[in-house]
């Protein structure tokens, strides 16, 4: 294996090259741009053989991938924030068509106000579209996950599109030594072969036509089932990857020092690596804390969460997005998943890191200490670290 020092964005570009993506269509948006620029370099230097379509919008980027997938070509795109929101309608089309598209997402806050910094509102807002969602915590994981994503997406039982998320700047523009697996080994892991469920000039069929109330529901049920089935395939793809390349990531909900923990914090994205340091520190101080990372948010790891909940006193959730519900998006789903479990830990949601606000070790330490104190009846949700408490905010003329 060759170690190359690269950003999270280049990890996406390298992975799409290793996967031999046959059609790439993308549109620039900060902080995604360097992914596409690198692919352009690969193509112009002849290192990568792909149809690289420089579309006029993210919306068209997604449609190019959807139509390419309809013919059975392996496709890749990447975007961020506003670009992802612009694709929203087509994300349903991709999943409904069972198009195994892989899309890199650089999580960036949404406007207004304009912001290029990270939070997860953009991809959380796509949770109901039928896409599998991975959130990464290192550049190495980005590269490895894009390859795993192809394995999962193209599994004949799954055939769903996959988003591979990385936090803006924390990963997208930060360099790290990344192992680039040899091409032959990647080819063996995800061989390029055309699916039989595609448009075929010799056997004319139609894809995507309308269905009446007599069968539409069954069709959607089949898509829903594919998402459920993907849990197993995601774990297998991760283990298989581990056997071949020596790295795996613990499936949907990797945990850290949770075995005897009193309280566990559930994080997503890069806040998770920071949280591990904080866990080690607090452990040294004798506090029994652990960490679980939402590596995969769709399909939702409800079994893993229920297992975790059975042994802890409290679960805290760090939500780096806000979905205008009664609490953060992850929290509401975690709480919902525990509704039917016998052992219900106390829960608290920490909304923080919005719009690129740093989630520093101090922030997470504060959250852990707060969580250790949580009692029955306490407030279950808090915007953590607001600079000016709500009551002080005045609308100045």
């Amino acid at each position: 294996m060759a170690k190359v020092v690269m950003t999270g964005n280049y990890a996406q570009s390298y992975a799409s090259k290793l996967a031999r993506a046959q059609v790439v269509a993308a549109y620039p948006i900060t902080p995604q741009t360097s992914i596409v620029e690198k692919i352009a370099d690969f193509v112009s230097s002849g290192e990568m053989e792909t149809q690289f379509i420089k579309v006029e919008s993210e919306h068209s980027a997604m449609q190019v991938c959807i139509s390419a997938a309809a013919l059975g070509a392996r496709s890749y795109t990447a975007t961020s924030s506003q670009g992802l929101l612009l694709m929203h309608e087509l994300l349903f089309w991709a999943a409904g068509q069972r198009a195994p598209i892989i899309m890199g997402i650089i999580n960036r806050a949404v406007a207004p106000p304009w912001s290029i910094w990270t939070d997860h509102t953009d991809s959380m807002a796509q949770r109901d579209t039928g896409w599998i969602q991975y959130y990464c915590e290192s550049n190495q994981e980005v590269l490895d996950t894009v390859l795993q994503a192809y394995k999962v997406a193209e599994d004949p039982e799954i055939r769903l599109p996959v988003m591979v998320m990385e936090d803006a700047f924390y990963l997208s523009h930060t360099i790290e030594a990344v192992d680039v697996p040899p091409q032959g080994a990647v080819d063996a892991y995800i061989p390029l072969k055309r699916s039989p469920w595609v448009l075929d000039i010799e056997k004319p069929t139609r894809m995507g036509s309308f269905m009446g109330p007599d069968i539409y529901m069954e069709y959607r049920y089949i898509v829903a089932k594919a998402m459920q089935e993907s849990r197993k395939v995601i774990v297998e793809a991760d283990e298989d990857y581990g056997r071949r390349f020596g790295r795996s990531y613990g499936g949907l909900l990797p945990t850290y020092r949770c075995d005897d923990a009193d309280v566990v914090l559930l994080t997503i994205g890069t806040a998770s690596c920071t949280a591990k340091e904080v866990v080690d520190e607090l452990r040294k101080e004798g506090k029994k804390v652990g960490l679980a990372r939402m590596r995969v948010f769709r399909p939702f790891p409800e079994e893993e969460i229920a297992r975790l909940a059975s042994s802890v006193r409290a679960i805290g959730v760090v939500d780096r997005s806000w979905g205008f519900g009664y609490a953060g998006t992850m929290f509401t789903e975690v709480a919902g998943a525990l509704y039917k479990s016998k052992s219900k830990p106390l829960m608290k949601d920490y909304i923080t890191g919005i719009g690129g606000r740093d989630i520093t070790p101090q922030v997470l330490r504060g959250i852990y200490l707060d969580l250790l104190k949580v009692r029955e009846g306490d407030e279950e949700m808090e915007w953590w670290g607001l600079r000016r408490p709500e009551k002080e905010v005045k609308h100045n003329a």
Partner: protein
Amino acid sequence: MPRFSIPEQELVYSGHVACPGCGGGLAIRYMLKALGPRTIVSIPACCWAITSGPFPRTALKVPTLDTAFETTGASISGLRAALDALGMKDITVVGYAGDGGTADIGIQALSGMIERNTDAIYFMYDNEAYMNTGIQRSSATPFGAWTTTTPADMDGTWKTEPKKSMMAIVVAHKIPYAATVSIGFPEDFVRKVERAKSIKGSRFIHAFCPCPPGWKYSPENTIKLAKLGVNTNVFPLYEVENGVYKITMKPSKPRPVKEYLGTQGRFKHLTDEMIAQIQERTDKTWNNLLALEGFSKEHPYCGL
């Protein structure tokens, strides 16, 4: 042995569910006759997303992809990209979209596709309104027409804006080939689609497709109207190859537009004054086209 002036092969099954007298149904039939079986069609939301039948049936004998309303230009780009990536060479890619899907919501994807000179045909079947959703105005609805959103129940509530010229727009992209066709003239129609098929790069066909329920006339008059539209110069037939305009049908004595307008319920509110105005506009456009035909010989893409 009967002699056919257009290809005999049928790539549209009978039994589709278009309205009787649907011009769009004839357009897709003639289009596929010209393109042949090695064709892949992309269809957005429009009447033909519905009329070719519900899953698992289809009225088309060629592979067909249904897509979102606004995506046709991008969809045919993706199909072509995949064929190129897979090394499939001899297949024609065509997008079959309505006037709304082309001139309104899909114009961005269309513009992008032509600007990239994607090797595909974009076929706009123009019934001059959003028919699938029940006859609402589009930017291709002609001046003076009634639609459900231009109700014409009072002065000035009909469509007060002129029809958008998609041909001018696509030619401004320096498209290799663009042509107008009418289902009233199948030989001219098929010849142009065959010509389009033989050219590499982006190609655009604008088809005049009368629609009985949308235009408020009786279905047996579809062909008559499709011819009258041309013979009144309301919808001139021409092609633009490498920027050079060529009018392919010049009525020796154009019929007055009144004949065309008078047979359609959507124009029945028009006063003589307005009809005179439409006549004047029609004559002007026709003269402009004649001028373009002359000038573009020496100055291709003269619209810049």
